[in-house]
């Protein structure tokens, strides 16, 4: 017999009956240990456990607010005493009050006005009194309940209060077989302790066996957010292929999001319905006037419409991370060293990953912000087939199948749509292509650039079918993160 069991049984053989508190006091064991031990003893039929139950009261949101103030019928009654009240002008809360007053027959309606019946006194609404009493003295629930039976039942019916009963252990009694049980203090070791390890007791003693099937409380561990973790996986895939990571601003002048990428100023994507424009700061000055001039010329020549710097200065939240790529492509113009490297044999391979924004109405499928990853390869003699190779390879590393289709984006030619296989259906993951000469020629006539901008969340949803909607990924509910399977 375990020593805890032995000491409790010994106590009960003497006392016959004891409360938990008493056992704790007499044996010096913790309350948890006592509870475990007596249930062991009960299962052996050596003791019996007497259970009692106690009731506790809970207040609903509504009940709580009434308890802190007044019931709607009390408020209404008070108002009627003071002024003439028209039924048609009652507030929603007062209408609730009216229902109860009518049910109790305390008021009449005459010509649209509320009239208090003659025999009605203010003090007659017992529910209010009882509710406040319960709220101030929840421990007196049983007395209050028996004193004001009807009012108490009404409060329950109105769902202003609710009762939950809880079981507790009243006492532990020894049984007949418990009394005659012979107690042997065995050498079985329960919990291992520093003292036991240091002594040599364990050499002779045996260890108490645990029941391995007993349910235990789940450990609470910290976890990474699945989307953030997936983003790191994508970064590692790029890294393993020799890409360098770059980053850029979230808040941009329209220039870097649209104009520098050959998106005409009357393009529908630039409309306020799709893009978040900012009130503060409303505009951001364009610094490199030389590039601005070249971009203006490129637009006016190709699109046959006037180009305005004021429109390009409007501040927006970037709608794609391609703005980061655009900044790096144009920056090469002033970076001779890097340019020489590129026109040699080494293409410059860059990637970025970050938040992008669309002015969407939010629902369970749509968010106004999400992640995008952009990549560019700047070099000489790069081909469409190179683009296909690199993209296939990156997504292979992440474990996702993709395919290519012709498509159109103003800044690439040829334009490619990248699709992803999800539950047997192909979905658009994003766009890719070779950056138009109009753009790259501004930097250098020698180079060409492969580019892509692809979604992140959809790819994760393909990998992890337990994620049902993109909104889950931006909730950060702790329970969801804790329960998420990470593989």
């Amino acid at each position, binding site marked *: 017999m375990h020593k805890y069991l032995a000491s409790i049984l010994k106590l009960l053989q003497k006392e016959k009956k004891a409360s938990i508190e008493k056992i704790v006091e007499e044996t010096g064991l913790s309350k948890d240990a006592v509870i475990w031990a007596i249930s062991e003893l009960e299962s052996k039929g050596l003791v019996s456990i007497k259970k009692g139950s106690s009731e506790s009261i809970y207040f609903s949101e509504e009940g709580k607010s009434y308890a802190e103030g007044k019931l709607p019928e009390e408020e209404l009654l008070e108002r009627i005493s003071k002024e003439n009240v028209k039924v048609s002008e009652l507030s929603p809360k007062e209408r609730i009050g009216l229902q109860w007053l009518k049910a109790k027959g305390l008021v009449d309606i005459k010509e649209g006005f509320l009239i208090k019946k003659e025999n009605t006194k203010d003090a007659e609404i017992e529910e209010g009194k009882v509710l406040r009493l319960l709220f101030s003295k929840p421990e007196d629930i049983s007395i209050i309940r028996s004193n004001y039976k009807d009012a108490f039942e009404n409060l329950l019916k109105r769902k202003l209060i609710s009762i939950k009963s809880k079981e507790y252990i009243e006492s532990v009694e020894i049984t007949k077989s418990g009394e005659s049980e012979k107690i042997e203090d065995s050498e079985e070791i329960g919990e291992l302790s520093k003292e036991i390890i240091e002594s040599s007791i364990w050499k002779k003693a045996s260890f108490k066996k645990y029941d391995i099937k007993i349910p235990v409380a789940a450990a609470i561990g910290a976890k990474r957010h699945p989307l953030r973790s997936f983003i790191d996986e994508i970064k590692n895939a790029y*890294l393993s292929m020799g890409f360098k*990571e770059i980053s850029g601003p979230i808040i941009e002048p329209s220039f870097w999001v649209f104009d520098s990428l050959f998106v005409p100023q009357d393009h529908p994507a630039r409309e306020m319905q799709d893009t978040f424009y900012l009130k*503060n*700061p409303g505009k951001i000055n364009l610094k490199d006037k030389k590039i601005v001039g070249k971009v203006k010329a490129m637009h006016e020549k190709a699109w046959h419409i006037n180009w305005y710097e004021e429109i390009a200065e409007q501040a927006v939240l970037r709608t794609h991370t391609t703005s980061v790529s655009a900044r790096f492509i144009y920056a090469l113009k002033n970076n001779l060293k890097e340019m020489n490297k590129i026109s040699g044999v*080494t293409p410059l391979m860059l990637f970025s990953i970050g938040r992008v924004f669309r002015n969407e109405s939010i629902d369970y499928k749509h968010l*106004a*912000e999400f992640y995008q990853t952009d990549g560019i390869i700047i070099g000489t003699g790069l081909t469409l087939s190179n683009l*296909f*190779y690199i993209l296939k390879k990156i997504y292979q590393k992440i474990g996702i199948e993709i395919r290519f289709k*012709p498509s159109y984006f103003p800044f690439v030619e040829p334009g490619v749509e990248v699709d992803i296989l999800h539950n047997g259906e192909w979905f658009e993951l994003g766009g890719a292509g070779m950056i138009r000469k109009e753009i790259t020629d501004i930097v250098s006539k020698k180079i060409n650039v492969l580019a892509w901008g692809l979604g992140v969340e959809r790819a994760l949803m393909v990998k992890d079918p337990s994620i049902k909607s993109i909104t889950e990924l931006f909730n950060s509910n702790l329970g969801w993160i804790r329960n998420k399977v990470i593989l």
Partner: protein
Amino acid sequence: MSVEGLRKEEIDIDVTPNRPDLLDIVGFARALRNYMHFHEKLVYKIDSNEIAATITVDKSVENVRPYISSFVVRELNLDDKKLKYIINFTEKFSETFGRKRGKLAMGLHDFSKVKGNLKYEAVPGGRFVPLNSSKEMEIEEIMSSHKKGGLYKHTISGSLYPVLQDQIGIMSLIPIINSDRTKVTKDTKEMLVDITGTSKYIVEKAADLFACMFIDLGAKVEKVNIKYDKKSISTPKMEQKIIEIKPGRIEDHIGAAIGFNNILSLATKMGYKGVFVNNKIRVFVPPYRLDVINEQDVIEDIAIGYGYGYIHPLPIFSEISGGSLDYKTNMNRKIIELMLGLGFSEANNNYLTNEKINFQMMRIKEGPHVEIKESKTESITMLRTWLLPSLLSNLGSSAHERMPQKIFELDMVFNIKGEEVEESHHLAGVYAAPRVNFNEIKSIIESIFDSLGISYEIKEEKMESFIEGRCAKIESKLLNGFFGELHPEVIRNFGIIEPTVAFELSLPY
């Protein structure tokens, strides 16, 4: 264009916005015929040298809607179905490609009802019977009370209205509505088409596109003379842009060996007439193509004709230079590891928020912040200036999960310093539990600084979000921030039910 879906008897086709010529069935059928080498038609021109009409352009339209093109269609053989189709297409074209008729719009008139020479001018007012109406109306009245006037108000900004008129009077209030007098019916034998807009090039190219459509419908197209102040032109011009490309360039661009003859056949497939001249491929861009700017566009079409699926992926041979991560990523990874070790789970929250969450619920006064101009969602008005409101929202939505609750976020916040926007990274953590106090968060923050090897100083701080006397700031050369026990009102505002302590640090990037 691409196939979006296949059902038993239907195929969904997605047409990209650069190809307005595929928006109508006639153009679509033309592309399909060429693609399948079946009744190819590569050359479109106007046989007759006849000028069917003259439109004089008055200077008054210069600042209103400066450009017009036009042509006349004969031998139409209209029936109800054909007429409905033509009207639908012109409407669709003006809505989409024409940007709700602002950039471009087109109108159709029964040419037999048109008398004498035509004039395109901007007038302050005038009267005519609008289409499908019996009552004469004043222009201003149309603009204010007619349905079309309301729909297309945005196209007119000044006090002058562009109109097309003949000897009898106004034929069209452009781009709002035509007159009933020149209405096209299924009995119409000859039709006058007008196209107006803000870009000369686009207005004229659109005339080419529509002329091609009518030619494919079996009609005869005649030119109209447009007389501007200084010069006059005849539309449709039906210009065939000529682009010459070295075959090698095409192969180099795509990265596939296609072969000389194959390239020509692929060009035909995509609707170009092509010939070899001096080792170069000379392609004639059909007049209905509005999107072809230069050789890149032709190369793309040849790649599409070849089929993206047949382009074999080829590796890039390059000296291995090795990849690298942004220093921010490397730094963030270290901090994330540290926070996980301290038992905090990682959050991923929105940057977009509103003033109520960012300031009011935190009991602090509104400071300068990045504001959104117009949002489709009411709860989105600004970018967050700090992380704690996001994390407290997370705790609020997790109120019934097991305690203790620890969650952190390492991400961007947006502040306005002077005139400039500052985008920077913060690290913040919150810790809710039945018994948690100032000392617990202090020990956590000290552990973070010690692990990063940064010496620091802790000073008194007063912030309305925290209980007075239970808040401190921590300062160092690299990281600065604050920590403490959150005020009960803040805790309640977010629907959290247990005591909560928190910290937030600004990182040097």
